[in-house]
């Protein structure tokens, strides 16, 4: 039995996000109205319609197949979706609801993906893998893509166990050190003509914010000197359709600022392996300061003087407790990115800009 005590992301939520990445139009949560509530709100901001069958006590006892059938019919009428995901919850899975049977009975025109999953199924990645598996069986993604994604997700789970949030029994949230201290370090390095590397190793949409650090460093470099190397996992040819769009958006915005990526370490769903590639690439580059944004723990040999930028308060606690004095937090990153289609300002980025503008005055 796992002795991790802090709450972790649930496979149900991971399944919902993966459905979104497949460009599902509607997600039906088959369970009590509150299941996945916070995630549902965020996903709605990202343009996915999330519906609940609103199970009640009686449905637990007698089953709620009819409810699901009715809801699917209404979804068909009201939204005429192309892809619908039906996601199980603890309530429906524990009583053994038959999602497939209900979908057949509803007989709607959309492609409907039944996702038999509940929060007790294991790590969150289990939910994502389940969705990909069903998507493959319905011909939405090819087998090779499924295999690649599955490999990435299993690597992600392993990474979390080794160095991430599930490596500690309990992590008290931490907000990270102040941005001022870290921004000064970056500007000092640049003004001493040092070589700074910015590594973006982000997961999916969080890249919209972490990529801003590259923009800010470039902004500073142009004004005060130094050199910079940019490494990022934003290969626009890798991943599910939505994920490729994210990479394309980011590359477009970087190009607008005259930034070119020196090395593509992978796609936005490849952070568990992209980190290794990034570190390898930088090995022989004589870098004076590394700034690692997104999921820094995926970089194999972090140095204590590296600047680590991440969004999860427990991740930050993990870094701080492990002696990384320059771990800064872009808290609430995820929630501000729903529906974003371009790079979003970061706090560290804005602090750098502010200091640079002050210096120049």
């Amino acid at each position, binding site marked *: 039995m796992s002795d991790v005590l802090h709450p972790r992301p649930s496979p149900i939520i991971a399944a919902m996000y993966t459905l979104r990445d497949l460009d599902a139009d509607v997600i039906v949560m088959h369970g009590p109205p509150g299941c996945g509530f916070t995630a549902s709100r965020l996903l709605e901001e990202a343009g996915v319609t999330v519906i609940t069958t609103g199970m009640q*006590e*009686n*449905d*637990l*006892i*007698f*089953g*709620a*197949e009819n409810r699901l059938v009715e809801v699917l019919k209404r979804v068909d009428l009201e939204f005429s979706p192309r892809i619908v995901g039906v996601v199980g919850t603890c309530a429906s899975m*524990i*009583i*053994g*609801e*038959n999602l497939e049977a209900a979908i057949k009975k509803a007989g709607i025109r959309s492609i409907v993906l039944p996702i038999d999953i509940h929060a007790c199924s294991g790590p969150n990645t289990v939910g994502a893998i389940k969705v990909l598996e069903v998507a493959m069986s319905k011909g939405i993604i090819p087998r090779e893509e499924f295999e690649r994604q599955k490999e990435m997700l299993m690597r992600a789970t392993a990474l979390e166990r080794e160095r991430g949030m599930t490596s500690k029994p309990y992590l008290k949230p931490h907000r990270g050190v102040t941005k001022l201290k870290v921004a000064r370090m970056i500007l000092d390095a640049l003004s001493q003509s040092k070589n700074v590397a910015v590594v973006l190793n982000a997961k999916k949409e969080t890249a919209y914010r972490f990529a801003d650090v590259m923009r800010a460093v470039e902004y500073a470099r142009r004004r005060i000197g130094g050199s910079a190397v940019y490494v990022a996992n934003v290969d626009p040819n890798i991943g599910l359709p939505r994920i490729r769009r994210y990479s394309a958006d980011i590359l477009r915005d970087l190009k607008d600022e005259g930034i070119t990526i020196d090395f593509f370490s992978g796609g936005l769903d490849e952070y568990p392996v992209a980190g290794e590639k990034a570190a390898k690439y930088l090995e022989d580059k004589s870098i004076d300061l590394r700034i690692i944004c997104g999921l820094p723990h995926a970089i194999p040999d972090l140095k204590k003087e590296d600047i680590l930028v991440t969004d999860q308060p427990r991740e930050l606690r993990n870094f701080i407790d492990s002696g990384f004095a320059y771990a800064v937090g872009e808290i609430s990153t995820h929630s501000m990115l729903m529906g974003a289609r371009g790079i979003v300002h970061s706090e560290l980025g804005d602090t750098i800009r502010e200091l640079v503008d002050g210096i120049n005055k």
Partner: protein
Amino acid sequence: MKQIAIYGKGGIGKSTISANIAAAFAEKGLNTWYIGCDPKADGSMTLLGGRKIGTFLERLRSSTDTTEPAYVLGFKGVKCIETGGPIAGVGCAGRGIIVAVQELYKRYFNDDIDVIIYDVPGDVVCGGFAAPLREKFANEVYIVTSGEYLSLYAANNIARGLENLKVNLGGLVCNSRDIKNEERIVDKFAEMIGSGMIGFIPRNPIVRECENRGMTVIEGFPNSTQANAYRRLAESILKNDTLVVPKPVDPEEIRVLLRENE
């Protein structure tokens, strides 16, 4: 108030025994409730002239009206309730039992009641099926078994459930299948698990006959030796104060016991 739960292997005759002892209590003038916990809702039929009644959960589901009584009056005023539950293959029967038992307790059970009998389906398979055993609900359990291996095996399993839940066993009821040395076998097995045999019900074709007519033996053949067997059992249960948490045995010991009595 005596609150008892009857467990035992499926098909062993729990409902027949529950209904007959309910009838025996009622004819003594005791305020008796029979709670059938099987989703099939057919346990109380012999108390009700063969009639099947609407279920408690259906009632909860379809109306909020709790002013009319939840029970249907059966033989000699036994108050009959069928909890009901899902149709086969959907929903969760265990959850149904939990909700029904809690609601009944909250809304209807009071100190005027002398005996509540929970007729529970099969084994203690999950938390739901164990619901009648929780504190406040049943405080003693009777296991119906015969001298056959499979029903003793099931009885042993139920004893394991009771041990886990630290619930008292009142004793074993032998519902005879006309096996050689049956009484001795069940008696010995009861002793092995730290309990005793509280009653022996002989096999008798009039049981089937009464069932076909939709009545208990107590109603159908009140003067028969069979009816008296049920009355004796009811009396023993009423007087019983040896309650122990059972200690299940290794199923192999059951085989040894059976071989010794072949």
